[in-house]
């Protein structure tokens, strides 16, 4: 047992740090660190910088551009990326559909999609959740019917993040209505320009337009757009959701945010006192930091343990999701505490949350309440915290 890192591991960390802090576009990092939303162009640019370095898809198979990094290397890669304010490569592409295609799709589909997916030449969005199928995803009702050599899709998806930018969508469809819930589902790819696909943006309470409803009305796609085998889509979805278990805690991101909060609290004043000198504030900040430090150590332990599991996700990663989401939410409360009355001003924005372009109060004020509102989602999506507790209860405690 040794918590210190090997010289090789440290060298890798330094390489990450150098690349992310010195070679990555500064302006994009600034926006992320300041809590601002990125435009489509910025997201694409950032993603391609990573891909050019070969770092957009490190966990893909090596033949498709993956790396043979150790768990510690992954940890540093993510931690340094998040701490530097470098946006993660687009998850829909690199953590979701990409690995599924690489693992289960035909060689033709791989060739057709993987390089373009890795480079964000195709922007994917995720067609999983439905109005009646959120945490209980398997009860989804969007169906795909085989007609000749096509699939015809009818139904509705929701909570489709950034669909406004997407070129393609991967859709879970019911292809056998007679089978048991999980067994009649298939995983199908569709071009967003296909006739019959329409999009309705959903405005979220932070003022942003990140999520959408997607309607499928007699949407015809070629049969080869089915990934893998028919009616095996649930397995692929589970595989997909099991990926990215370690990044889910967003420890590096919370570190960066706490650092920022510390800086801002040293600038902002109440009367003549700095916010950071308020004992109650510093106590809350400290306890969040301690909790995050514990989570970082827990993440390292889960990461280390992953080696022995042959790719099966460790149910302990549910701890990361639980604690990680709560800590992210706590940091947004701290930011509001720094801001005080200037949490109030609101400005809608097309691409994200109420940015205060007019600059009322301190310049960082405008993001504080929207961040708080927006971050309520992190304990709901990706398997709500209640679902995570169910997983731990069943898989670890044996209930």
């Amino acid at each position, binding site marked *: 047992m040794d918590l210190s890192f090997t010289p090789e591991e440290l060298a890798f960390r330094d390489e990450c740090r150098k690349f992310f802090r010195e070679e990555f576009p500064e302006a994009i990092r600034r926006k992320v660190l300041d809590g601002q939303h990125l435009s489509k162009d910025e997201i694409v640019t950032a993603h391609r910088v990573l891909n050019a370095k070969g770092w957009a898809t490190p966990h893909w198979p090596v033949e498709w551009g993956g790396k043979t990094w150790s768990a510690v290397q992954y940890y540093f890669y993510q931690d340094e990326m998040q701490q530097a304010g470098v946006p993660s490569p687009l998850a829909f592409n690199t953590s979701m559909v990409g690995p599924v295609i690489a693992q289960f799709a035909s060689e033709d589909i791989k060739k057709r999609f993987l390089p373009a997916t890795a480079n964000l030449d195709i922007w994917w969005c995720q067609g999983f*959740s439905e109005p*009646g199928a*959120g*945490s*209980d995803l398997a*009860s989804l009702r969007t169906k795909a019917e085989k007609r000749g050599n096509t699939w015809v899709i009818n139904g509705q998806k*929701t*909570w489709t993040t950034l669909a406004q930018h997407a070129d393609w969508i991967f859709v879970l469809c019911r292809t056998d209505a007679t089978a048991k819930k999980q067994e009649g589902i298939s995983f199908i790819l569709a071009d967003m320009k296909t006739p019959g696909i329409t999009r309705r943006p*959903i*405005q*979220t*309470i932070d*003022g942003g337009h990140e999520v959408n409803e997607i309607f499928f009305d007699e949407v015809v796609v070629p049969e080869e757009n089915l990934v893998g085998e028919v009616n095996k889509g649930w397995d692929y979805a589970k595989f997909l959701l099991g990926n990215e278990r370690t990044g889910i805690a967003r420890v590096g991101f919370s570190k960066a945010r706490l650092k920022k909060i510390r800086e801002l609290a040293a600038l*902002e*004043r*109440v*009367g*003549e006192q700095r916010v950071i000198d*308020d004992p*109650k*504030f510093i106590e809350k900040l400290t306890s969040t930091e301690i909790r995050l430090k514990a989570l970082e150590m827990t993440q390292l332990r889960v990461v280390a343990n992953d080696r022995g599991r042959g790719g099966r996700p460790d149910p302990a990663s549910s701890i990361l999701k639980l604690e990680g989401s709560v800590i992210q939410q706590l940091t947004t409360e701290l930011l*509001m*505490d720094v801001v*005080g*009355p*200037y*949490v*109030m*001003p*609101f*400005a809608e924005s097309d691409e994200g949350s*109420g940015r205060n372009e*007019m600059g*009322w*109060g301190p310049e960082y004020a405008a993001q504080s*309440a*929207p961040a*708080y*509102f927006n971050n*309520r*989602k992190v*304990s*709901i*999506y990706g398997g*709500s*915290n*209640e679902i995570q*507790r169910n997983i731990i209860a069943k898989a670890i405690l044996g209930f």
Partner: protein
Amino acid sequence: MDFDLSDDQRLLKDSVDRLIADRYAFDSRKKIMAEPGGWSRDMWAQFAELGLLGLPFPEAQGGFGGGPVETMLVMEAIGRGLVLEPFLPTVILGGGLIQAAGSPEQQKTLLPQIAQGKKTYAFAQVERSSRYNLADVQTTAKQDGSAWIINGEKSVVMAGDTADTLIVTARTAGGRFDRGGIGLFLVNAKAQGVTIQGYPTQDGTHAAEIRFDNARAEAVLGDPAGGLAAAELVMDQAMAAICAEAVGLMHEMHVSTVDYMKTRKQFGRAISEFQVLQHRSVDMFVALEQARSMSIFATFAASETDPATRSRNISAAKVQINNSGKHIGQECVQLHGGIAMTMEYKAGHYFKRMTMLEQLFGDTNTHQAKVAKAGSLF
């Protein structure tokens, strides 16, 4: 001791509740939000007609002689309806300050205007770093003959973009934090030297940044150097009022969560059948009832004669309201799931308003520290 409403109070409550139910459905509210300044002149006229705008004023001044209990009833309804009209800034703060500090003459002239819905007010008090300290005033008022000239900047002034008259705290003497030397000045919002930049706020209401460059005040309320005590009194009354508003919000959040749980199905059954969600909604309910109790406590504290006791008790109430409100708001969103994250659904709007009320007039830390300093509550 009697927790029952009197007949008049019951009547008032019923008529306000009916107005809110009839006119403040979620869609109607959305339309009102789109009006200039984000509130409805038409609705305001109805409030006046119903007597709400003069509710706490003496009958001699066009009011109905209502006390803190009547205000509580109206504010709770305002919370339940997520009402956007500037009742708090105009009637509670504006009217309250005129009652507390104005001359009999001023009261006779100005209060009926409010009661009849002719004038709205805003209380321009917060400054860039003053937070929740009413005595932290850097805006100045200098005498020029019989007139007062105001210079300075005020922050996040509730309803400051549509108010006809601003009541401005300004310093006529003393240093930045001195309790003496603060006056309450009436400034016409359209006066020369007044620059108002309005904006919508996170909760659907509006506020403004206001700059005074040699702006001439119309009048001063009471002693130009002794306004702080009245400001503190009215701030305490306003705090009691928003405690009641918050209870209205919490009530709606709790009820909508329970209702949603009974209809939403997952894994083949209503989610209300999951014991874990039941217990969490029970904890919301307990938090709501504790908040309701402290809202009543604050209501009675508002007419407490000793300022130290009044202020301590109302701060204690605000702490409970904030704690309950944060808990209920966060759980309301969590138990609803995604739908409460959307602007299309009502729950998220309650959550947003509640979040702003947590900060308004002092956050939890501030009030907890005040209670701690004041000594035992018992």
